[in-house]
C-alpha cells in the first residue's frame, strides 16, 4: 500500500484539483495534460529510482492510480 500512498501524494502535489482515488480515465479523459505527465514522470523516477521508458508512456499505464502502482512495481523489480 505504501507505493500507492506515495504516488497519490505526488499526484496531489501536481494536481490538487483531481480526485485520484476514483479517476480511471486520467489520460484518455484528458484530465492530465502533457506538462502534468512530464512532472509526474520525473517525480516517479526520482522517488522510486526507476527509469520510465517511452514504451511505458501509454495511456493504460497512467489512466488510474492503480495502473501507475502496477507500472512502478514492475519497473522497481527490473
Amino acid at each position, binding site marked *: 500500500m505504501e507505493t500507492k500512498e506515495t504516488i497519490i501524494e505526488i499526484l496531489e502535489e501536481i494536481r490538487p484539483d483531481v480526485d485520484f482515488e476514483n479517476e480511471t480515465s486520467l*489520460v*484518455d479523459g484528458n484530465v492530465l495534460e502533457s506538462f502534468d505527465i512530464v512532472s509526474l514522470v520525473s517525480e516517479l523516477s526520482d522517488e522510486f529510482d526507476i527509469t520510465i*521508458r*517511452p514504451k511505458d*508512456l501509454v*495511456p493504460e499505464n497512467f489512466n488510474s492510480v492503480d495502473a501507475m502502482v502496477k507500472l512502478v512495481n514492475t519497473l522497481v523489480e527490473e
Partner: protein
Amino acid sequence: MENVLEWLEATAKRIPEKVAFTSETEEGSDVEVTFGEVYNLSRMIGSTIIKDNDTTPVGVFSKRAATTPVLFMACVYANRAYAPIDMALPEARIGKILDNLMPNVILVDKESFDSFAKLCKDIYPDKKWDVVVVDFEKGIISKYNDSSYESPSAENKLNEDLIDENLLQSVRNNAKPGDALYIIHTSGSSGRPKGVVTSHESLINYIDSYGDVMGIEESDRFGNQSPLDYIAAIRDIYLPFKYGASSYIIPKKYFMDPNALFTYLNDKKVTAVGWSVSALTVPLSLGAFEEVKLDTLRKICFSGSVMPCSALRVWQENLPDALFVNQYGPTEATASCTYYVVNHIVDESEVLPIGKAYDGYDVFLTELDCDSKVITDEDVEGQITVSGVSLAIGYYNDPDRTNENFVVREMSDGTTKRIYKTGDIGTIHNGMFEFHGRMDRQIKHMGHRVELDEVECAANSVENVTETCCIYKKEKESLILFYSGDATRRDLSLALRELIPGFMVPRKIIQLDKLPKLPNGKIDIKELEER
C-alpha cells in the same frame, strides 16, 4: 495579392481534390477536408453570416479538427474577422473574451454546441446573439436566435444553394488589404485578455517571408501542434492555401507519448513543423528517439520561448539533414518578426541568437527608458521594437491598451514610425539580435504567454486568500504560487481552474504564514525565488 482568399481560390481551382487538412477522431479514424471542400463549404457558410453592412467580428467555437479552418474562411468570405475561442477554457475566461468581443454572430461546430449552450445559459442568460451551428458530418447548418438554444429558427442542408454569388462578390469588392482578418486573445496582466487584431496584409507578408525562409513547397506536409485558437496555428492554416501543401492536425494526447507522436509523424510523412519549443523539449524528456526514429521530418521551426541548446543538439544529432530555424516575435507582430537559421551543430552551453528581421519587418532596439531613441551600437541592451506592415491593427475594443503599446514616434534617426514595444530586452551582436529577457513579469510557459500578474490577480480574488506571489522556475519549467491565508491548497487550485486556463494554473502551490517583505513593504520576490 490583397486578400488571403486569393491563395485559397487559386489552389482550390488547381488541385480541388487534394486534401488540405486531416485530423483524427477520438476513435482514431481520419477526417479529411480537400481544398475544393474548404472553398465550397466556406462560401456556403460565409453567405449565411453576411448581414447588411455588419463587419463586426465573429466568435468561433470549434474543436481541434480539420473542419475548423472552414469556419475561419467562412468569416473571411463575409469579410468579418474571426475570433477563435477554445471551448475547453474555464467559463469565466470565455466570459471575459466574449465581454471584449460582444459579437453579433457566433459560429459553433456541432461538437462544441452543447457546451456552448450551457455556457450561455450560465453566464449570458439574456443575451441574444445569432448563433450559427454547423454539423459537418450530417451536412446541416442551423441558426438559433433565442437564448434557450432548444430549437433552431432555421435549418438548411449544406449545399451549393446556400452560396449567394452576388452577395459574396459585393462583400469582396469592399474588402481592403488592411481589413481585420482575425482576433487572437492573449494573456493580459490585469486579468482582462487582449484581443490582437491582425490584417490580411500583415498575415500575407508573414506567410510569404516564412515560406521563403523554410523553403516550403507543394509536397510539404505540416504537422500541426499549436491549438487552432492560438497564433502559431496560422502557419498550418495558411501555408497549405498558399502552396497547396497539406496539414495534419496532431491529436493533443500524442505529445505525452513520444513513440505515438513519432509514429504518427512517420505514418503521415510529415516533412515540416513549426512548433513551440516545449513541444520539442517535452518528448525528449520522455525519451523520444530512443525507441522510434523520425523518417520524413526535414524542416523544423521553433518559437515561443528560449530553446535550450542541449535539447536542440539532440534533435540535430538525430536529424542531421534537417533545417532548424529559431524564430522570435510577439502575436502583435503577426506571430514572429525575426528568424535565425541554425547553421552549425550547436554546443550545449551556447545561446541561440533570435537572428534578423523577416522580409517586410522593421525590427530595431530602442533605449530602455526612451522609446524614440534608436540604438545602433552593437552589444548595447535595448528594448526590442517592431514597426512596419506586420504590426497588428491594435487590441480589439481596447483603445487604452492599444495606445499604450502601439505608439507613433518621431525617431532619433529622423523617421516617424508606428511602433510596437515588445517589452523584451535585446542586443545586437555581429548583426544578429539576441534575446535577454523581459522588462516586466511576462513569461513563456510551455509555449504560452503568461503574465505572472494575471495569475496573482486571479489568486487574490479567491476567498480566504490574503496575499500571493507567483514565480517561474525556468530550469524546471514550473510555475510556483506562494500564498498566505486560510484557504487550502486544494481550494485555491480548484478556484484557479475556474478562472484561468489550465496552463496558467501553478502545479506547485505553497502556503506560508506570511509572505517575505522588502523594507518598502513590497513582496520579496528574490527571496521566494531562492527557496
